[in-house]
């Protein structure tokens, strides 16, 4: 599906899974919807869900199939997190710059992700709603230095004004490609056992016969 619904060109494509984490009202869903329904990319929308979105990208000649998994932000579902983020290549942790609590939540997620998935996962900490700069309650400096201290990248976005979103995803994809390449090289050297390759990074040859599926990535066929 997402991985195999490639175009006519033969070759390899990276498939990445990215989880979207953040409290209820930080705007994480609008952020991704904005990205996937970007007006410049209207024709490339491949799925129509709000909770599971996919996007195909071409970055420096490398084809990437991105699958973005939304998660429920309510506190009572917190314990379900690990079910969603296993095998993820990246995580986007969103907070609302006007809401100090939502930033604290992000910190908790970071701790948990690092504990469960180690350094293999690319983390993005995203301060959303920069259109509300006047009501900012999380200082830029604090957020950025925190991100640096945990090996994450920090981004400033506004889903409302469509600011910073394209950069966020592009950057994340580049980092995930790098991580995947390091993995591949490690495998290529035979230095690690083949079973050690992470399941999340699948490099899949596009099958010619898959095209009959209508090019969509939904598995309706």
């Amino acid at each position, binding site marked *: *599906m*997402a*991985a*195999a619904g490639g175009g006519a060109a033969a070759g390899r494509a990276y*498939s990445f*899974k990215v989880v979207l984490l953040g409290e*209820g009202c930080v705007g994480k*869903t609008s952020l991704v*919807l904005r990205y996937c329904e970007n007006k410049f990319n209207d024709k490339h929308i491949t*799925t*129509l*869900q*709000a*909770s*599971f979105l*996919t996007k195909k990208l071409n970055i420096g000649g490398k084809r990437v199939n991105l*699958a973005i*998994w*939304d*998660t*429920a*932000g*309510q506190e*009572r*579902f917190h*314990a*379900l997190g690990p*079910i*969603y983020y296993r*095998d993820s290549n990246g995580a986007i942790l969103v907070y609302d710059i006007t809401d100090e609590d939502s930033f604290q939540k992000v910190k908790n997620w970071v701790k948990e992700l690092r504990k469960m998935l180690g350094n293999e996962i690319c983390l993005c900490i995203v301060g959303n709603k920069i259109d509300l700069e006047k009501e900012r309650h999380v200082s830029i400096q604090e957020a950025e230095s925190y991100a640096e201290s945990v090996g994450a990248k920090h981004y400033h976005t506004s889903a409302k004004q469509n600011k910073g979103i394209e950069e966020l995803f592009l950057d994340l994809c580049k980092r995930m490609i790098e991580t995947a390449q390091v993995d591949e090289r490690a495998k290529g050297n035979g230095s690690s056992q083949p079973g050690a390759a992470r*399941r*999340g990074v*699948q490099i*899949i*040859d596009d*099958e010619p*016969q898959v095209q009959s599926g209508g090019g969509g*990535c*939904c*598995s*309706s066929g």
Partner: protein
Amino acid sequence: MENILEEVLQNREPEALQQCLRKALSSSLHPLGKLLRTMMLTFQATYAGIGANKHLQGLAQEEVKQHAQELWAAYRGLLQVALQRKGQALEEEEDTEIRDLQVHRLVLPLILPSFYSELFTLYLLLHEKEDSLYSQGIANLSLFPDTKLLEFLDVQKHLWPCKDLTLTSDQRHSLVRGKCFLSATECLQKMITTVDPREKLEELERTYREIEATVSRVLGQEHKLPMDDLLPLLIYVASRARIQHLGAEIHLIRDMMDPIYMGGLYDFLLTALESCYKHIQRGDMHQLPSSRDFREP
């Protein structure tokens, strides 16, 4: 044998191939059918009776996949012989990736019914504890009338399909049970009417579409549910569907599904269902509905 080889030669296109394999595997006279029968009997002898031990689940599921590969290899063997008799050769060495694809997409669904009963029993045993907690959860949640349950699960009020609660004269809204999201619930229940992982996943996708369709109808416009809204609704539907041994179901689907679905929509929906299953096991799902303003209808 002549006929069998001729048939293999004639049916090489995907659709025809599937039909041909289906027929061959269900025939007790066809070599592939005979092979499958032997595998099935061996499998039963191994994993039924004293072999039904949860620690053997991993082995058993590997074995079923192995059998699918062996049957595919046997088919390729037949094809090779058939071609040689015509003075042709099999094109080239088979790509392992294409082979795995064929095995999962084509062969596994055809042979899974032969092993399903014993295999599922092992999954039952392996997930017995969680399944029993989950059963307690759904038994308890089934006591809630619809609106009480929607409230208990914190489904946002504007998403409640209140119009679906048709009332008889002596009923109150707050007492009706099993009317909300009925279409979605029925879809989910269909998941257990097939053994094919792909068909199960299709039912799950239909369930999800039904939830969205119901919500869109309530709101009077097309509505795409973010996870914050979808998850409570899916928990509602899962609890109403009351599928027994949901844990065993989920894990069997995940192990047996075509790996090409990994990371895609099916994987996502199965994960969402798994999270509902986990959530229903929680202690606070075992609370009784408060007796205030609620009596048995």
